[in-house]
């Protein structure tokens, strides 16, 4: 479903060019659970950004669901991002002035979906995640684990092709982190492609397939 072919990403740092990714080839099947591990600066963030269409490869191609997305315009990429990719971040990135339900609803709002449809989907998803009672709370009234659940619900609301989770437990305590991970794994067991980006080897090893990034190169 996801295919990277000879992807490189070079940043210009002053006069010097830094190779964040060098000639990466990667294929991810639908429904896979894959972890991308590596120390900071190894290129895993760049990898995440490229997989999430937040960044473009300098060379190489990225095929998502059979479509070469590297050739698309910014506007078209936005649409792909909205419909096919769900992000889960280390720092949750919820909009502080919005309630849990409104945060979950946001991608649907951006897509111009009908309010009735939005309400129905949000209610169903919050219910599924055991967050119904918290729907009207703002992020600062929620615990870390609850915030991440809301964030995962938001990532799921558009029924994406894959979830990219960037250190999803990095800002949570051990127990809560485990719960959140279980939730993500449960989604994967129901067929959702899950890409877990982490520097934590113990966490990464839970995935069925691990790849390591080191100095911009990917090792299976």
């Amino acid at each position, binding site marked *: 479903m996801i295919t990277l072919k000879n992807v490189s990403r070079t940043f210009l740092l002053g006069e010097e060019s830094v190779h964040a990714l060098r000639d990466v080839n990667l294929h991810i099947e639908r429904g896979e659970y894959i972890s991308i591990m590596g120390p900071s600066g190894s290129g895993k*963030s760049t990898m995440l*950004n490229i997989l*999430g269409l*937040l*960044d473009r490869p300098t060379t190489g191609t990225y095929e998502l669901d059979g479509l070469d997305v590297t050739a698309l315009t*910014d*506007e078209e990429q*936005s*649409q792909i*991002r*909205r*419909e096919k990719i769900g*992000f889960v*971040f280390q*720092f949750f*990135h919820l*909009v*502080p*002035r*919005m309630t849990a339900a409104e945060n979950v609803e*946001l*991608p649907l*709002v*951006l*897509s*111009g979906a009908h*309010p009735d449809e939005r309400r129905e989907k949000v209610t169903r998803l919050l219910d599924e995640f055991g967050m119904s009672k918290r729907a009207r709370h703002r992020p600062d009234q929620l615990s870390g684990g609850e915030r991440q659940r809301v964030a995962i619900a*938001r990532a799921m609301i*558009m029924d994406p092709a894959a979830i990219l989770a960037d250190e999803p437990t990095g800002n949570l305590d051990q127990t809560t982190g485990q719960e959140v991970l279980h939730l993500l794994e449960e989604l994967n067991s129901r067929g959702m492609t899950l890409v877990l980006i982490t520097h934590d080897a113990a966490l990464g090893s839970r995935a069925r397939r691990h790849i390591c990034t080191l100095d911009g190169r990917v090792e299976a």
Partner: protein
Amino acid sequence: MIMRTRDIARFAWHALEGARTRSLLMVLATSIGVAAVVVLTSLGEGARRYVRQEFESLGTNLIIILPGRAETMGGSAALASGRTARDLTIDDAMALQRLRGVEQVTPLNLMEGEVSARGRRRDVPIAGSSSELQHLWGLSMASGRFLPPQDPRNATPICVLGSKVGRELFGGDSPLGQYVRLSDRRFRVIGVLAPKGELAGLNMDDMVIIPVASGQVLFNLSSLLRIAVRTRSREDVAAVKDGIKRLITERHGEEDVTVVTEDALSSAFDKILTALTFALGGIASISMVVAGILIMNVMLIAVAQRTGEIGLLKALGASPRQIRVLFFAEAALLSTVGAIAGSTIGQAGSFVVRRLYPAIPAYAPVWAVTGALMLAIVTGIVFSVLPARRAAALDPAQALAQR
């Protein structure tokens, strides 16, 4: 790709609500600008209408003759040539009476003097004129009658009192048939004016009116302040004006008078005051540009503060265009609210002006109100272009890296 308009508005509204103080300040800045335009132009327009009314109350088929020749470049021909203009006299006025198209000629002198009766004294303006003045100034009588038609050369010792002067000199008694003293001469009161208030800057209620010749005797004058000529119809004005110039030139040897028509006078004032209103509106508009710059500044801060949120919106699939639209919407909402608040405040301001100065019809002209509203909204949006572009151009990966 398109967000629902209601959702855009709601998002913008919540974003503004999230930064309440900042939003209120921006609304305030815009509203002050709009209110300033509304109030200032209503003052200018009020002054214009006031002056117009004053002129129209003098009549539209009126020609005023003033001694001396006014030049457009200031000064007078008489001054330049070292000669003084000849006075206007009662004889001039009588000669004018015989011109074709002339219906009425009113000679006028205005003086200051002391009137006394029953031991009470008042300093009052004294008008020396003729029976025609009643029509010219639209005076009505409370009791008695106005100056009778007579040869203007007759210095009859009779007078008409303004309502206030009559009351103050004679208390509750009727002044009719009584005598008042002007300087050292006795005048019989033949009438009292009905209360009238101000007319052309003179308070009619304070006025004492006597025959023009009596005034000249009293103050030892041979000249007139001015002569008002009323033509039979409006169409006669131009012809009579020429006739007056010819006649005066014939009598004085040169055209040493200024002949003014009500039309010319009032349209000159009209032009001046309209220009003034525009100028006031323009000056006030500058404050709106200042408000626009403030909006830009604050929006730039908002973009910096909400970097994380913008990055998130991008990650959730908001296109650069959507981000721009959202920030536009915020600016548009702010400046619309500010503009409406400002015009309400401005209208309230001109209402207060009208209550304080009932004579001045201080209504803001429609062009000024709509112009101010449009300008406020347009500047709000124009000045949000830069912040909105900056927000849309944010690198989402970097934006999200911030906590």
